[in-house]
């Protein structure tokens, strides 16, 4: 069957992904469990998913990552069977399931607000799917007890779900979704309502549960840190399209375009011109870099991560600029430097004073070159930098759906 995915054309990383799997030679790992082909979905004439192709391998922890309204939740709901796509097909284990209703799919969901049944206690909530399947009473007891143990809620059997804390409700929701042994677990921003500390704990716990039971997790979040720390594969989405698919390291170190670079971590994104392979000019200075394969004189986006920029005395700098703001972040200082009118963000453990003139030094392998895209010029400049604005937009993202 000839079938070319969006990311085959658009993102070389997907080839990397395939090759890696080939090299491992692990056919079980490679098996495509879920496949989306040409999926499109509109609401009120507005396209939320645009001709999307994606496959999900058996037993992997895959994260759909993107800002509010990028289509990630809709994608999840299509896989879960709560929405149907306007166009395209959905395959599960080789069979088309586009029109199979949710209750017949071997896919269970952990909902954003848990959706526990308030009329049932903890035990009965978890037993619910087994009772629907008419499993024998003693087997139900065995499996529910095992689940409660796994999510560390033994002894909570008879509690009413409304008396549980957010974290405990979360665990009940996970246990309820896993007790019927689904092939895939869908998680829709499940940690969104928890506080930071609990969130970190649950991240680790989810990851270890996934590894322990060995099924596919499809996780939706707008939190890039969450995605980086938990996933085997990250799918970065924006405007209903997949921007990049890859491992967390791929995505972070080799973002495909300005959107991905900006969304995953902090980035300085500067207009540059390729002079030759491994030679790029930006900020009126020519740098050695490690990327090649571009046409001579091609305009490109240059990404430099704030932690990869070294602060040096003015005389020794490759570029020089004036510090406009310094914020103490605990582990490091966040320094905004004005270099020829472009505001750079630099993270450094050394303190520099505002209004000080400094030099910066950039190693060749700290420079990442990207092709120009429709997102060029929209991201990666810190001239309007403000912590508060950043947080506000995060809160917005959490409101999605």
């Amino acid at each position, binding site marked *: 069957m000839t079938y070319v995915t969006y990311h085959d054309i658009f993102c070389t990383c997907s080839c990397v992904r395939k090759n890696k799997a080939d090299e491992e030679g692990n056919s079980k790992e490679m098996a495509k469990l879920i496949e989306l082909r040409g999926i499109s979905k509109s609401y009120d004439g507005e396209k939320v998913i645009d001709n999307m192709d994606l496959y999900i391998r058996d037993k992997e922890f895959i994260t759909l990552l993107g800002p509010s309204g990028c289509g990630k939740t809709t994608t999840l709901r299509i896989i*879960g*069977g*709560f929405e149907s796509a306007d166009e395209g097909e959905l395959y599960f284990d080789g069979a088309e399931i586009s029109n199979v*209703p*949710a*209750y017949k799919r071997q*896919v*269970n*969901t952990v*909902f954003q*607000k848990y*959706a*526990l*049944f*308030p*009329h049932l206690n903890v035990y009965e909530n978890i037993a*619910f*799917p087994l009772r*629907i*399947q008419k499993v024998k009473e003693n087997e139900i007891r065995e499996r529910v007890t095992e689940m409660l143990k796994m999510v560390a809620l033994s002894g909570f059997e008879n509690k009413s779900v409304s008396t549980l804390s957010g974290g405990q409700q979360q665990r009940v929701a996970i246990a*309820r*979704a896993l007790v*019927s042994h689904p092939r895939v677990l869908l998680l829709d921003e499940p940690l969104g309502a928890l506080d930071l500390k609990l969130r970190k704990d649950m991240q680790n716990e989810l990851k270890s549960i996934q590894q322990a039971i060995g099924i596919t997790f499809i996780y939706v979040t707008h939190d890039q840190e969450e995605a980086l720390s938990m996933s085997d594969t990250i799918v970065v989405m924006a405007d209903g399209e997949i921007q990049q698919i890859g491992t967390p390291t791929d995505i972070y170190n080799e973002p495909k375009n300005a959107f991905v670079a900006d969304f995953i971590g902090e980035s300085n994104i500067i207009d540059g011109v390729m002079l030759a392979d491994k030679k790029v000019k930006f900020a009126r200075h020519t740098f050695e870099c490690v990327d090649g394969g571009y046409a001579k004189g091609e305009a490109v986006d240059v990404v430099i991560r704030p932690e990869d920029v070294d602060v040096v005395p003015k005389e020794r700098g490759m570029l020089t600029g004036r510090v406009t703001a310094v914020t103490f972040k605990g582990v490091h200082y966040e320094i905004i430097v004005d270099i020829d009118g472009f505001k750079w963000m630099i993270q450094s453990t050394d303190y520099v004073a505002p209004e000080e003139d400094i030099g910066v030094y950039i190693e060749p392998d700290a420079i990442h070159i990207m092709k120009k895209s429709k997102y060029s010029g929209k991201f990666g400049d810190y001239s309007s930098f403000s912590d508060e604005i950043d947080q506000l937009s995060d809160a917005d993202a959490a409101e999605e759906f």
Partner: protein
Amino acid sequence: MTKKRSLMRSIAAAPHVFWAVLFIVLPLLIVAYYAFTDADGAFSFENILSLADYADIFLLSLELSVIATLVCFVIGYPLAYIIARSKPRTQKLFIMLLMLPMWTNLLIRTYSIMAILDDGGFLNQLLNTELHIIGTKGAVIFGMVYDFLPYMVLPIYTCISKIDKHMWEAASDLGCTPVRVITKVIFPLSLSGVISGITMVFVPSISTFYISQKLGGGTFELIGDTIERQFVTGALNTGAAISFVMMILIMISLTVMNRFGDSDEGGIIV
């Protein structure tokens, strides 16, 4: 400071307390007084003991009101469910249509039903038949259902529309067919609305007198008619005794029902 606050609260509550005492507590005390006294005002159990004579009437009232409540539930639950699951604009329209008859006086509505169902009424003229409807149990039950259906639909509708929409998805996700989504999750979650609806239909049904008088065509006497007759004919003590015992019976049955509803909202009485 708390003292000041509680004083403010007392002042704010005063009109309501006054109202409740004047129009609820006081009348109840008067009913109780008449129920336990004879015509001369002396204490007596006579009235209560004489109620055994009315057992047949009471049972008939119970039969008709239970049937009417059941019919209301069977029609009302699906209707409430459909309304609650439709688009917000459709919901508003449905609710308005449901409320519309309630803007007309209950008596006028009952007279209208009479005009339609009568032996020479609209229905018989239209169908060119000689159906005898008025004066049957069916007519009385029909009147009860027609008059009280909105009281069944509204609390159930309110209850279902408050259920988190993810409940449907979660149930279906965990293997419920569309029918089971309702029987296993949605119905149990709307039970408090059902209890309220049953209460609000059953209580006026069992104590109605004009529906049975008009649509029963004088062939039925329900407990409401009996009470009315006692007061009209001046037998205040017997009338009060029947009312009093009715009230106690209704309260007991509602308490039992609310046990099933076991929820912090929706239970209207007790």
